[in-house]
């Protein structure tokens, strides 16, 4: 229920959470995130960490594709750059994780800027192909530059460490991944409250008009690439610490498509959409596996029958969302919110 929320200042009106109810829900959500690792079993903890990493990377791609309108198939490549940076640094320098993760992000951002250079000239599908080429090229470097990347065998690394603490278990990693995911999502939301975020959206909606308003297209497109790949780099770095082995096969092209699908299913150009899309894409295949396990006692043949079906059901779910909710999962959430806005007085 939301009534009588007249604002006293512009500051209050521009806040991310504008009502006490919203703040309460967000507080509750943080509390759940905090309590979760103490209640969850190892499998759920593992999933929690995966969702956290996926949320960071999806939010990054959402900045580029959802908000700035530049389609990229390079996300897995940028994550790979981040992962290899972390792996190389931890093998060769032993720096603590906050430094390696920032460097991973910066390295990925630098590569992102290079890959983004053609974006001034090419748009849409052509840009998708250009980023695809970049991701193939990166994959080639991961596999062939053996002195740095360890070639096809990849690199194995020590657990993340800071002040003598070693983050070996999933339980420990959860406390790196999830707070970082929350912070990075909030930072992304902040960007879209300022002139920089508005410039990104302006480029997506009508680039000629953006230019007439004094927005330098190349500068902001490259900034979007840099920011997006910074997120990918950090996500890749977390990935490296989480699995503690990085190979060229860790970041296949299908992973880029996975993130693009997450952005679309969640809701393009919507911060909440990035979170929901990442969670959906990570959890639904797992849920389908659980469903198979649950069916097995009744239908002993379920695993044989279901395992090839999983991919089909997963694909069908995505297609279903695209048809019935083209604005993504975030739109469903907004609809629920609208329903309860004046509830129970009017709906």
């Amino acid at each position, binding site marked *: 229920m939301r009534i009588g929320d007249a604002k006293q200042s512009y500051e209050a009106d521009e806040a991310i959470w504008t009502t006490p109810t919203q703040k309460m829900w967000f507080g509750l959500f943080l509390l759940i995130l905090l309590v979760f690792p103490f209640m969850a079993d190892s499998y759920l903890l593992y999933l929690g960490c995966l969702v956290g990493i996926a949320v960071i990377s999806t939010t990054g791609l959402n900045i580029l594709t959802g908000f700035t309108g530049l389609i990229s198939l390079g996300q897995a490549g940028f994550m790979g750059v981040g992962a290899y940076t972390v792996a190389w640094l931890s093998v060769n320098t032993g720096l603590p994780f906050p430094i390696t993760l920032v460097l991973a992000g910066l390295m990925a951002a630098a590569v992102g800027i290079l890959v983004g250079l053609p974006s001034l000239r090419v748009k849409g599908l052509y840009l998708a192909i250009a980023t695809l080429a970049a991701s193939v090229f990166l994959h080639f470097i991961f596999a062939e530059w053996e002195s740095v990347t360890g070639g096809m065998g990849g690199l194995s690394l020590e657990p993340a460490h800071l002040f003598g603490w070693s983050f070996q278990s999933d339980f420990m990693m959860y406390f790196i991944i999830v707070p970082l995911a929350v912070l990075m999502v909030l*930072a992304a939301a902040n960007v879209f409250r300022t002139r920089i975020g508005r410039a990104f959206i302006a480029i997506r909606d009508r680039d000629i008009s953006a230019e007439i308003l004094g927005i330098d297209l190349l500068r902001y497109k490259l900034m979007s690439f840099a920011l997006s790949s910074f997120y990918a780099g950090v996500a890749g770095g977390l990935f490296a610490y989480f699995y503690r082995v990085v190979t060229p096969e860790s970041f296949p092209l299908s992973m880029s498509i996975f993130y693009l699908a997450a952005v679309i299913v969640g809701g393009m150009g919507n911060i909440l959409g990035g979170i929901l899309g990442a969670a959906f894409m990570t959890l639904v295949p797992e849920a389908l596996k659980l469903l198979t396990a649950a069916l097995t006692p009744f239908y002993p043949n379920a695993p044989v029958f279901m395992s090839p079906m999983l991919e089909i059901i997963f694909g069908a779910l995505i297609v279903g969302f695209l048809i019935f909710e083209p604005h993504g999962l975030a739109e469903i959430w907004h609809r629920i919110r609208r329903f309860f806005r004046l509830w129970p007085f009017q709906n």
Partner: protein
Amino acid sequence: MSVLDISNLSLSFGGVKALQDVSFRVPEGTVTTIIGPNGAGKTSLFNCISGFYKPQQGTISYEGQVLSSGIKPPRRAALGLARTFQNIALFRGMTVLDNIKLGAHVHMKSGLLSALAYFGPARREEMVVRKDVEQRIIDFLEIDHIRRQPVASLSYGLQKRVELARALAMQPKVLMLDEPVAGMNREEKEDMARFILDIREEWGITVLMVEHDMGMVMDISDHIVVLNFGQVITEGLPSDVQKNPEVIKAYLGNSDIDSLRKKLNPEGEAA
């Protein structure tokens, strides 16, 4: 004192001569209107001034400074040349408020890092812009009731008004309006005419306008430039331009206005 000085401007696309040796001045603090039949080169001229087209010959001087082709559209915006488009060029996915705030982009400075943190300078700057947009522009153009609505959901007349608001947020010295009242009903046209006059009088902004609605053009213009086939036919006060036989010919295809009137309306003075 002229704020814009166009001299000997020529622009051609392949064999098509869009502008031929066009020269005129826009006196500071006036509403100057460019009229002419379709295809006369009015929008091409606007695109030259904004920097989208590069004229083959001639110069455009703005406040005494020659705008060479190296000065790109974003730089021209920062210099104080604002513009609206013939076909509304708003950002459809954004709210009215965000569209208007985008106009202030060139006057804002906060960088990416402070934007990510939304702390300190970035936050203060956003608040200053919000206050300015609310008090100076939204109130003035009477669009406070729609500030939260996405632009795509608004009527045509309101969208035009939001586009004007966005141009005003750029704090321009010269405001270029490409057909500001096309497709509007009478009431919306009157509102727009009132806003344009207020912009000139209260804010001291020079208005350069392209418009087809002769009633409005004659009512609010201080200075009129007539283009036909890419050339300036005549320029001057509305009353002078109205009487010019060349203008009548360009518009009606016949210099004998009286015989034309009779042809159209055989009853004569009955109407």
